[in-house]
C-alpha cells in the first residue's frame, strides 16, 4: 500500500521512465542499468547495444543508500544494479535480488577465485564482482610534511597541523569506519560502547574538518583547497592524474575493502538480457576498457593480465597481501546498530565542541515540544560578526541607493510643483 502511494506521488518520475521505454528502437527490450556515477566506460554501452540490439537505459547514483532508497520506494524499476557488498547482503536478506542463472554468464569463469564466495554472498548465487578497492588517504605533498605521512597512519586525518584543510566522508558508514580503525575496533562492531567512542573521535575531529564531502572531494583536492582527504582508491588515482602533487596510501591501521558486484533485481522483466549484460561486462576486452576508465582494481584475471605493468604493480590499487590482511569488508549491520549509527552521526553533525559549557545558552521549554538548544559561541561571536558586518556593508550600499531615490523624488516634486 505504502509503495503504491509513493508511486502515485512520484508520477512524474514514472512518466519519464515510461517515455524512455516507449521510444522506437531496433529491439523493444530496454535494459535499465543503475550504477555508481563515473563508474563505467560509457562507450561500452554502445558496444553492447550494437552487438545484441538491446538498448540500455543507464542511470547513476551517488551512494548505496540512495540506490536502496530509490528501489524500495518503488519509484522506478531497474534490471541491473551494482551495489557494494554490505548492501548486497542487506538486499539478499530482504529478498530484493534475483538468483542468477550462471549458464547465461560463462565469463564468470574468468573471475579470480579469491573474489568468489565472499561473506556477503557465500554461495555466489546473486552477484558477479565488478570491481574492488580500498579506502585510501589522499594528501598533497606540497603542504603535508613528509614526517607526518612517514608512518602511513590514519592519524593524519586528526592532525591539528592541518586544521581547516582536512576533508571527511559525508556518509556515516565510511566516516565511522575510519574512526573505528583509528581506535582499533572492527568497523563492523555491534558494541554500542565502541560506536560511542568512535563518535567521540569524529566529534573531536570536527573542528579540524574543512567540510564533509562526497563528490566535491575532487574539486577541493585538485584545486588545493584542502590538503588531506580519505577517499576510494580508484577516485584517488583520478585526482592524482589531475594534480601531480597529490599522493595517497592505504593506512596501516587498515581500511575498508569493498567489492562492487553486479546483481539483478527480483521482478526484473529482462532477467536473461540482464544476465547477458553481466556476461558482457565480464568479457576480457570490456573489463580492460572499464578498468582503464575507472582505475579501480578488477577481479577478472585475464583482463588484469592485460593491464599495463604500472597499474598492475600499483600498491594503492592492488595492495600487497599484508596490507589487505588488515583491511576489512563491511557486513550488513543489524537495524539497531544502523539506528545508533544514524543517531551518532546526527550528534556529530550537530555538535559544537568548541563551546565551553558556561557559554551555552539554554532555551526554555517550548509549548510545542521540548526545544532544548545550545547556541554555540561560534554563532554568537565570530559568525554574527561576519553576518553583521555584511549587513552593515549591505545597508550602506542600500542607503546610498535610497538617498539617490529620495533625491530623484524631490526633483520630481519640484518639477511637478513648477
Amino acid at each position, binding site marked *: 500500500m505504502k509503495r503504491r502511494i509513493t508511486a502515485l506521488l512520484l508520477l512524474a518520475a514514472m512518466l519519464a521512465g515510461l517515455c524512455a521505454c516507449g521510444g522506437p528502437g531496433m529491439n523493444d527490450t530496454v535494459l535499465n542499468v543503475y550504477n555508481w556515477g563515473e563508474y563505467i566506460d560509457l562507450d561500452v554501452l554502445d558496444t553492447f547495444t550494437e552487438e545484441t540490439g538491446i538498448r540500455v537505459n543507464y542511470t547513476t547514483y551517488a551512494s548505496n543508500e540512495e540506490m536502496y532508497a530509490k528501489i524500495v520506494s518503488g519509484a522506478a524499476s531497474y534490471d541491473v544494479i551494482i551495489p557494494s557488498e554490505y548492501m548486497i547482503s542487506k538486499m539478499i536478506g530482504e529478498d530484493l535480488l534475483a538468483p542468477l542463472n550462471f549458464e547465461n554468464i560463462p565469463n564468470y569463469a574468468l573471475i579470480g577465485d579469491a573474489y568468489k564466495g565472499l561473506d556477503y554472498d557465500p554461495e555466489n548465487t546473486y552477484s558477479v564482482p565488478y570491481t574492488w578497492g580500498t579506502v585510501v588517504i589522499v594528501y598533497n605533498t606540497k603542504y603535508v610534511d613528509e614526517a607526518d605521512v612517514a608512518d602511513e597512519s590514519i592519524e593524519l586525518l586528526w592532525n591539528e597541523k592541518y586544521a*581547516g584543510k582536512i576533508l571527511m566522508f559525508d556518509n556515516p558508514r565510511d566516516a565511522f569506519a575510519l574512526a573505528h580503525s583509528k581506535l582499533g575496533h572492527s568497523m563492523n562492531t555491534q558494541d554500542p560502547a565502541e560506536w560511542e567512542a568512535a563518535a567521540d573521535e569524529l566529534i573531536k575531529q570536527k573542528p579540524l574538518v574543512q567540510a564533509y564531502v562526497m563528490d566535491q572531494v575532487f574539486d577541493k583536492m585538485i584545486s588545493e583547497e584542502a590538503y588531506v582527504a580519505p577517499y576510494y582508491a580508484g577516485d584517488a588515482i583520478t585526482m592524482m592524474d589531475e594534480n601531480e602533487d597529490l599522493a595517497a596510501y592505504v593506512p596501516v591501521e587498515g581500511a575498508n575493502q569493498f567489492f562492487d558486484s553486479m546483481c539483478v533485481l527480483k521482478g526484473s522483466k529482462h532477467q536473461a538480457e540482464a544476465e547477458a549484460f553481466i556476461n558482457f561486462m565480464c568479457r576480457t576486452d570490456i573489463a580492460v576498457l572499464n578498468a582503464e576508465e575507472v582505475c579501480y582494481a578488477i577481479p577478472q584475471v585475464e583482463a588484469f593480465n592485460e593491464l599495463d605493468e604500472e597499474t598492475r604493480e600499483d600498491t594503492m590499487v592492488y595492495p600487497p597481501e599484508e596490507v589487505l590482511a588488515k583491511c576489512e569488508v563491511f557486513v550488513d549491520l543489524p537495524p539497531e546498530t544502523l539506528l545508533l549509527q544514524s543517531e551518532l552521526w546526527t550528534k556529530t553533525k550537530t555538535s559544537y565542541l568548541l563551546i565551553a559549557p558556561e557559554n551555552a545558552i539554554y532555551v526554555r521549554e517550548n509549548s510545542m515540544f521540548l526545544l532544548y538548544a545550545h547556541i554555540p559561541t561560534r554563532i554568537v561571536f565570530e559568525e554574527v560578526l561576519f553576518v553583521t558586518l555584511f549587513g552593515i556593508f549591505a545597508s550602506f550600499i542600500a542607503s546610498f541607493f535610497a538617498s539617490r531615490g529620495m533625491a530623484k523624488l524631490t526633483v520630481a516634486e519640484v518639477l511637478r510643483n513648477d
Partner: protein
Amino acid sequence: MNKGLAIGNNKVNLLPFSGWMVVFVLVPIALVVYYAFTDVDGFTLENLKWVGTYGKTLWLSVVLAFYATAICLLLAYPIAYSMSRASARVQRNATLIIMLPMWMNFLVRTYAWMTLLEDTGLINSALRAIFGMDFPGLRLINNHGAIVLGMVYNYLPYMILPIYTSMTKIGTSLIEAARDLGANGAQVLGRVILPLSVPGIISGITMVFIPSISTFIISKILGGGKDYLIGDLIEDYFLGNSGVVNYNIGAALSLTIMVMILAATFIMNHFDKDASTSGGGVI
C-alpha cells in the same frame, strides 16, 4: 460580490486550480500527516518525540533563517523604495536585473559562491594578489555566515518584489500631502510609507523565511556539511544517507516545520489586520 461582474461561472473557472490544489497540495499534506502519526504498527506519537531530540538543529535553522530574513529586509526595503519612485523605464530594468540571476539554476548559483568564497577562491586570491600576503584568519566558507550569505543571495528577489509591488501603490500625492503638512523625511517614512508597505513586508518575510528554514543544499555546499539544518535531516530520513530510511520521522519533521511556519504566518497576519485592506502583497 457583484454577480454581474463575474465572467463565466466562478465555480467552473476555479475547477482546474482546485483540482491542482487537491492532487498536489492537499493529498501530499494529508500523506505527511498520515506518515507523521504512524509507523509500521499503526498510530503512534513516537515520531514526534524524535523531533524533540533535534531541538538544536531546529533552533539553528530558525536562527539562520532569521538572520537571512532580517538582512534581506534591510537590503530590500531601500531598494524597493527607490525602485518604486523611479521612472517607468528604470523600474522595468531594475526588475529585470533583480530577476536575472533567477534564470540560472539554483544549484549552479550556489556552486558559484563556493568558488568565490573558498580559501583558494576568487576573493581570497584577489586579496592575496593585492596585499601580497595570506589572510589565514579570513575563512569565508564552511561556516554559518556563508550559509546565511547563500540564503540572502538566493532569496533576496522574493523580498524585494513584494515590497516593491506594495510601494508602487502608494500614491506620490500621499507623500506630497505629508510634506505639505510639515513632515520631514523620517516622518514621511515612518508614518506614511512604512505602514502602507506592511503587506509587502509580510509577504516578503514569508517568502524568504520559509525557503530559508527548509533549505538543505545551501548548508551542504556553503556550510561544508558541518552543521545539519532541519532540511538536511529530512533529506537524510527520506533518502537514507545516514543509513536509516524512515519516512515517518521525516514526515514528522516536515510537519513540525509546517506547523511552525503556519504559526509564524498567523502571528504576522495579525499585524497585517489594519493594512490588509490596502492590498499590495504577493501572497
